């Protein structure tokens, strides 16, 4: 999407087409010759993995929609019909349900990678904010998808989450009634959630296009956090990164398949195999694992409105990260103090997730409050850190960070050994 295209079609038909719609050249410049920093590690393969997961969810989801019935009296039965009667229905449904979890596994790695290596810093702020928007759309999609089987967890999850909006003064109750299309979660709610669950992935795909577009303006950040300066700092996307991405994807799919084939319900809740009953709430209602840290923040605050605001705020604050982190150095590898607080933040997020699954009383509530305080405190610490931290010395170039000073010198000397571009 940037002007790197050197693509010249080999055939006359190709040239005729390219002069009318230069899409092959666009793909060529974006995913074939695009110069990536040569030091990208495996954490940079999660973008590709996420693209795969989005496609996988759309393919399995559209297939499931051919067999599913979005009606309060028939939805639960139609999911069982998919599991028992439809050829390979069990496989497609388990791929879709576990696919949602794997999608979030990948997105959390992707987000934490960006946070560690400072990928949100200038000139990549818009890229980062588009990522936060994708994350929000993913959460909305996953939530509505979880409602569709119309089990007990579906129903009560929908009730609790839609009721979050009732916390807003004056208009809250009206918003909730309009979300429900009735006076409680019922068939109209299920219908519109199905419609939106089908729509949102395509909106995600649209924002992903913008995300990649914004990425290809400055190019990828890298573990050294310094910009590419010369050709020696980069390698073409194909074959170097297509192969690296493909290897990571295959390993990731193995993990995905392990869940699908060996423990497909491990990440779900048994209560969701009981049909929705508006008269009884399950004893332990918890969201899916990927929402647990935010759920813990909601429950940590003893006030309803403040709890809801804190929960939404915990996601919204990410969008402001480019301006909350005042350090000029991008990569955490060169920020000794940052590293400590970053890893504490990561551990804190995991503990919040654990607390979100625990009952909301006693020590759990106190622990949730401490962890919530640090979650928000981290962003304040980042702000101060930029002024007080002394970063370690940055490498002079990406090539130097990979090859060391000598390798860099050799590369400058145009040595063939240090110039993979010439190998093939």
């Amino acid at each position: 999407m940037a002007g790197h295209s050197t693509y010249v079609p080999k055939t006359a038909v190709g040239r005729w087409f390219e002069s009318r719609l230069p899409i092959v050249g666009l793909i060529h410049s974006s995913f074939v010759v695009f110069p990536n920093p040569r030091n990208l590690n495996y954490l940079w393969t999660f973008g590709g993995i996420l693209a795969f997961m989005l496609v996988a969810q759309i393919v399995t989801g559209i297939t499931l929609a051919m067999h599913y019935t979005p009606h309060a009296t028939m939805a639960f039965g139609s999911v069982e019909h998919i599991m028992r009667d439809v050829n390979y229905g069990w496989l497609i449904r388990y791929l879709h349900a576990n696919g949602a979890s794997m999608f979030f596994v990948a997105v959390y790695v992707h987000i934490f990678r960006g946070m560690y290596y400072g990928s949100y810093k200038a000139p990549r702020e818009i890229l980062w904010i588009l990522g936060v928007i994708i994350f929000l759309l993913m959460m909305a999609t996953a939530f509505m998808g979880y409602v569709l089987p119309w089990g007990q967890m579906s129903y009560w999850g929908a009730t609790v989450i839609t009721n979050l909006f009732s916390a807003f003064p004056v208009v809250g109750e009206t918003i909730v009634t309009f979300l429900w299309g009735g006076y409680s979660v019922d068939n109209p709610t299920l219908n519109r959630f199905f419609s939106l669950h089908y729509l949102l992935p395509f909106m995600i795909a649209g924002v992903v296009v913008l995300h990649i577009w914004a990425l290809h303006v400055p190019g990828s950040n890298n573990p050294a956090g310094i910009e590419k300066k010369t050709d020696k700092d980069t390698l073409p996307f194909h074959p170097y990164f297509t192969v690296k991405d493909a290897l990571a994807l295959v390993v990731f799919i193995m993990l995905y398949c392990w869940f699908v084939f060996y423990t497909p319900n491990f990440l779900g809740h048994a209560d969701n195999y009981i049909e929705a009953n508006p008269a009884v709430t399950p004893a332990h209602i918890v969201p899916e694992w990927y929402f647990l840290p935010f759920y813990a923040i909601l429950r940590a605050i003893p006030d309803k409105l403040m709890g809801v605001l804190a929960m939404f705020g915990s996601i919204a604050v990410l969008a402001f990260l480019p301006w909350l982190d005042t350090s000029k150095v991008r990569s955490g590898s060169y920020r000794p103090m940052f590293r400590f607080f970053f890893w504490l933040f990561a551990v804190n997020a995991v503990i919040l997730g654990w607390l979100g699954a625990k009952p909301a009383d006693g020590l759990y509530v106190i622990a949730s409050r401490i962890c919530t305080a640090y979650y928000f405190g981290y962003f304040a610490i980042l702000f101060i850190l930029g002024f007080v931290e002394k970063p370690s010395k940055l490498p002079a170039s990406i090539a130097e960070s990979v090859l060391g000073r000598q390798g860099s010198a050799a590369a400058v000397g145009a040595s063939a050994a240090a110039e993979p571009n010439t190998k093939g």
Partner: protein
Amino acid sequence: MATTAAEPTRRDFLFIATGAVGAVGIASAVWPFVSQMAPDAATVAAGAPVDVDLTPVAEGQILKLFWRGKLIFVRHRSAQEIKDAQSVDVASLRDPEADAKRVKAGKDQWLVVYGNCTHLGCVPLGNEGAYKGWFCPCHGSVFDTSGRIRQGPAPTNLPLPPYEFVSDTKIRIG
């Protein structure tokens, strides 16, 4: 420009008028798409009043029923439960409301409240919690025998549905 800066031209008028008509047009086109999200006619029609016969509800029992798709508790309170509800210092409550305001005069034994927690809508469990009213298992809200919030995150008391006694043993909800 310098000569007529303060004087609106015919072009300015057309610009504003066109913009205003456009804005009204967009708003009226959007309205049906917002309005369709509201409860539909069938859902509203399902809100016709329902009669509930109280004779089979024994003392201490909590009847669950639905009106307009919403869960309602009809609780037959014991003398002790009524006393507990009445003896509370109203000023000390989060959502101050006397028990007498929450039941019909002379019908202290019958408490009729919506059955969804005012926090996030779960169904509280009857005869549980520190006040033996209701306890919500989701986020730990505790209600007393008058359905008033006493502990936990819920901001308000369990609301009362509109109802009246049509006879000594029958109520009409709605």
